[in-house]
């Protein structure tokens, strides 16, 4: 399938250039002194633009000639084994390359407006560049080790970007949480890697293709799936993503919607051949649970970004579900479409937040700029934003003629095909799979109704007539591009047929005909739209205190559960180990290893320093032992003699008897 063609040198160098330019952007941003931080904005924008052009041209070329290639060079080698750095371009890569570079470039562009005036703008752009580099590396990597390297680096840049406003305690906490959750997944990923290594002896994806099926594969792939769970925020590690919304909104768009979180799905698709049916079942179940939880939670959120975050979660769950049902192509398709419309939604939300923030700045009034309860009727104030947001929202909710409809369709198709005709537990998953688009519709339009329709609550809060400013051009521009990308033609020329040109690159054997599911799903979402209109159109959001809504609001109290089952025990454990260290290990060693007395005297010697408890008790015991050995040398000579003679007697008895 993969043909190495020497002639394709051009694509190779283009790809490598596309990969390295963001890195150069990062390095430049690090080197350029603080005074010239404005230079950074320009350089990184330019570099990213070039990178994007290159990536797109590579993709287009390869899409045309199907000349997949890979190059590799030895990174380091142990005596017999070599670890390589290599890139491999195949259909998945080709799909992902433009997505990452385009979204990244747009986010860069957007950020020049959004982040204007931020004091750490240099650092911000540096990390954006670094992230793009890592993400591209992740896509291009031809072996699992390298993939893991970039996988981690992506996590690191995410950490840095979430924590960008480190003055905010919440941002710090969120970034830490994100990294640690990722790390938990990564540990699993690493175990999976190692199992593969130990059994197959290679990391190279190509050579892994030729490995026969072994019993270890289920374990290995499940471990790899742990990495996915962490990175793509699947159940049970999903709560970091909503928290990660503390980062700047463009970052959320880039990392936590379009690219990084999707990397998990990408990985699944890429390693799909390794997964055994048993593992896939787990994958499907996890995906379903995630999607359900997230979409239910999204229904009651009030923070605009959080709603989007939960929506991302549910979409990711949906994709994972797709992979689990044996259709990585569908998942990739959804990933592709999702990247654009979700980025568009986030950037749109960012635009709203930006303008509200400006407003807040002007009026010197404080209110929560991200709370949808403070918004309303923005349709008139921010028309461009409204339209783009609407288009992207429609794509998200899967209305026909939008890209989301097609990709969702593909997934639903594969789910039904997978479930088969016989009734089994798999039908629960099918039902859920159909419930999810419905829910998606509900929360999407709930959001849209609240934000853009109805009366303008912001004015009510501020209490005066204010002038809303539409966001600057550099910010509007990406919105428009992204919303255009959310239309159907990006997937397929036929708005009802997902087997478009994109799907071809992914799958060798396209299926034919408009399936029943397509029709059903179209009707289904329209029904949902109607429901949402009647249910949410004019309803104000009162903070509901009902148990159910609280449950959903806190996304089933997963965080609380973690606290109870992980954080608290770990804290207890650390306290315990500390105590063990001071009291037992030290105490034990104080008491016995140095044969009691020694340390008794150390301690009596230093006792004024050792105030910590525990040790003292030991010391006293040991000290008394010491004084016993001494006491019979008190000063009574006749007693001495007695002891000496007694010693002789003991020797005599012990030897004679």
């Amino acid at each position, binding site marked *: 399938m993969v043909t190495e063609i020497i002639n394709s040198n051009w694509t190779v160098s283009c790809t490598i250039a596309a990969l390295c330019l963001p890195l150069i952007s990062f390095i430049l941003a690090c080197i350029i002194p603080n005074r010239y931080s404005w230079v950074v904005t320009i350089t990184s924008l330019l570099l990213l633009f070039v990178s994007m052009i290159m990536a797109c041209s590579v993709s287009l070329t390869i899409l045309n000639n199907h000349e997949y290639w890979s190059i590799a060079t*030895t*990174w*380091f*080698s*142990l*005596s*017999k*084994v070599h670890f390589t750095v290599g890139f491999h371009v195949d259909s998945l890569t080709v799909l992902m390359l433009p997505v990452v570079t385009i979204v990244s470039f747009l986010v860069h562009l957007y950020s020049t407006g959004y982040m204007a005036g931020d004091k750490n703008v240099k650092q911000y752009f540096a990390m954006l560049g670094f992230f793009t580099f890592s993400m591209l590396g992740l896509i291009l990597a031809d072996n699992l*080790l390298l993939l*893991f*390297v*970039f996988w*981690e*680096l992506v996590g*690191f840049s995410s*950490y840095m970007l979430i*924590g960008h406003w*480190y*003055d*905010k*305690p919440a*941002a*710090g*906490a969120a*970034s*830490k949480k994100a*990294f*640690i959750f990722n*790390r*938990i997944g*990564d*540990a*699993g990923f*690493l*175990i999976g890697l*190692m*199992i593969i*290594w*130990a*059994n197959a002896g290679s990391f190279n994806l190509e050579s892994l293709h030729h490995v026969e099926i072994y019993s270890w594969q289920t374990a290995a792939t499940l471990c790899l799936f742990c990495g996915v769970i962490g990175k793509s925020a699947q159940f049970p590690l999903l709560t970091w993503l909503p928290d990660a919304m503390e980062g700047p909104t463009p970052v959320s768009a880039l990392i936590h919607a379009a690219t990084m979180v999707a990397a998990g799905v990408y990985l699944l698709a890429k390693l799909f051949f390794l997964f055994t049916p048993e593992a896939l079942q787990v994958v499907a179940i996890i995906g379903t649970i995630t999607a359900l939880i997230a979409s239910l939670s999204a229904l009651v959120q009030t923070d605009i970004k959080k709603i989007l975050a939960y929506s991302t979660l549910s979409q990711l769950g949906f994709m994972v579900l797709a992979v689990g049902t044996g259709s990585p192509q569908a998942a990739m398709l959804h990933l592709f479409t999702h990247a654009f419309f979700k980025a568009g939604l986030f950037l749109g939300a960012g635009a709203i937040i930006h303008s509200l923030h400006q407003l807040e700045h002007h009026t010197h009034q404080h209110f929560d700029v991200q709370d949808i309860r403070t918004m309303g009727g923005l349709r008139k104030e921010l028309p461009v934003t409204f339209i783009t947001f609407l288009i992207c929202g429609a794509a998200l909710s899967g209305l026909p003629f939008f890209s989301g409809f097609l990709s969702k369709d593909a997934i639903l198709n594969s789910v039904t095909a997978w479930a088969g005709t016989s009734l089994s537990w798999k039908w629960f998953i099918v039902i859920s799979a159909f419930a999810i688009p419905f829910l998606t519709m509900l929360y999407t339009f709930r959001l849209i109704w609240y934000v853009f329709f109805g009366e303008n609550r912001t004015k009510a809060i501020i209490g005066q007539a204010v002038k809303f400013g539409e966001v600057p051009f550099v910010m509007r521009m990406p919105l428009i591009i992204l919303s255009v990308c959310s239309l159907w033609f990006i997937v397929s020329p036929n708005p009802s047929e997902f087997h478009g040109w994109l799907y071809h690159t992914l799958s060798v054997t396209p299926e034919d005909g408009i399936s029943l599911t397509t029709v059903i799903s179209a009707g289904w979402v329209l029904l949902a739209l109607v429901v949402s209109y009647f249910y949410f159109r004019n309803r104000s959001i009162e903070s509901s205190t009902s148990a159910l809504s609280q449950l959903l609001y806190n996304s089933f109290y997963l965080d609380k559960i973690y606290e109870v089952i992980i954080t608290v025990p*770990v804290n207890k*454990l*650390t*306290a315990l*180990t*500390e105590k063990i*260290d001071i009291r037992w*290990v*030290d105490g*034990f*060693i104080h008491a016995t*290893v*140095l044969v009691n007395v*020694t340390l008794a005297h*150390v301690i009596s010697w*230093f006792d004024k*320093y*050792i105030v910590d408890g525990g040790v003292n008790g030991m010391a006293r015991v040991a000290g008394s032992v010491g004084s016993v050995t001494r006491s019979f040398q008190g000063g009574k000579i006749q007693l001495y003699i007695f002891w000496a003679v007694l010693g002789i007697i003991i020797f005599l008895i012990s030897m004679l008897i």
Partner: protein
Amino acid sequence: MQHYLLSLLIFTPLLAALIALFIPAEKKGVFFSLAAGACFVQLVFLVMILTGYKAGASLQFVEQHNWITIDLGTWGVLKAEYFVGLDGLNLPLVALTVPIMLIATLASYSIQKSVKGYFILLLILNAAIIGSFVALDFLLFYFFFEFMLLPMFFLIGIWGGPRREYASIKFFLYTLLGSILILIVMIGLYISVQDPDVPGKITHTFNMLHMSNPINYISNSILDPNHAWKIGSFDVRVLAFVFLFIGFGIKLPMVPFHTWLPDAHVEAPTPVSVILAALLLKIGGYGLLRIAYPVFPEAALHMSWFVGLVGVISIIYGALNAMASKDLKRLIAYSSVSHMGFVLLGIASVTTEGVSGAMYQMVSHGIISALLFLIAGVLYDRTNDRMISNYSGLASKMPMYFGVVLIGFFASLGLPGFSGFIAEIMVFLGAFKSHSVNGLLPTSLAVIATLGLILGAAYYLWTIQRMFFGPFSIKGNTSASQLPDLIRSEYVVLLPLVLATLFFGIYPQPLLDFINPYAQYLVDVVISHGKVIGSTLNH
């Protein structure tokens, strides 16, 4: 010249110490320049060595002179030599030692209290560390090994923090306990081993290379591999291995013999902490690789699961304790415990990957821990306060410092791109592979070890969150004006380390070229000898 480079490396600091002895104590600046100068001279020698070294497992730069030869009458001749040499195992460590000593010396610029004594001790310590790395004669090794203790004892005890006396005594006693265990084995070994090169009378030799060859054992001697001596139900050779393991493990340090480390680190002045963490700990791992494994291969194979278990326990336990630490230096010290657990795990796997990883981890940890302790020192220099809870939001106050801290912390928690990642990956490769290659370590052990990665991330990030994030505020009796960002002299010591850890993280091959042949050789030797000995015992 070529042949005396190692001796020059050892004796340069000693010579400088001797010169310093005759300079009146009032001239404070002289001692600093003298010590730094000596380190620079060493650096020149090191470069000469590195250029002259040919990759491969063989010994190079060997110097071998008779040291002690005593005729013991009926039971032969006792022979100890001045025998030094370099191979893939100790070259990286020597190459680590020299720059780290230079950095530690430079970082000692601010020492005020009895400067003369301080630098003399530092120079002696320098010589002893290099000596113990290059010595190939057990007695010589032991001499240098013990000789490190006294300068260290005084460096902690005189120039340390408020509980310095306690810490120094604890350090000394622990290490001495360990070295006594080593001494016991050493005595047993040299009595059991004869020098094959000397004909005629039995020559008891301290030569480590002879010790690791089973044919050199006097038949029916106490540690003769072909003759199973037993004490109670214990095989003597296994017992000897365990003694060595504990002896070096104390130095490493491994749980539960680690408690000297936090105390010593917390109390020691910054440069001494740097040396302690970056260099002294390595001697434990070095000893295991140099002595314990080659000399007792079958015992090592027999006990490997135990070594691995202790390694894993150290990883987890150290990390948990680090999480509980309230003192920055203590946290870093416990993280050292955790990281040195990887060394044990790697060694225990007895695979090329694992052993290479362990060796790589030693170098990497040497660089990173030096960096971390210098980082802690920066803060301590400014405020005399290392309590984590007393700081908040430092990132906005000292952005460059924050940058360096980030690099240090993430390097330590094993982010790709830093040397720690390469080392840990290789250790894991070895640990997971071990089960299928030689069946020494159960996979579950390796799986548990990955928990260490998560915990590592947790305690470092938590620290960052507490100290650097959030709005700026400090507690205690410090004021914000005491917290300027990094100054030039601090860059001088910090930057080389940052660059080194990056370099070895991105391009590990040069170091692996040194390490790998030895690791391969060691694994081959251990496995083949271990099997040979094991089979002769069964017959």
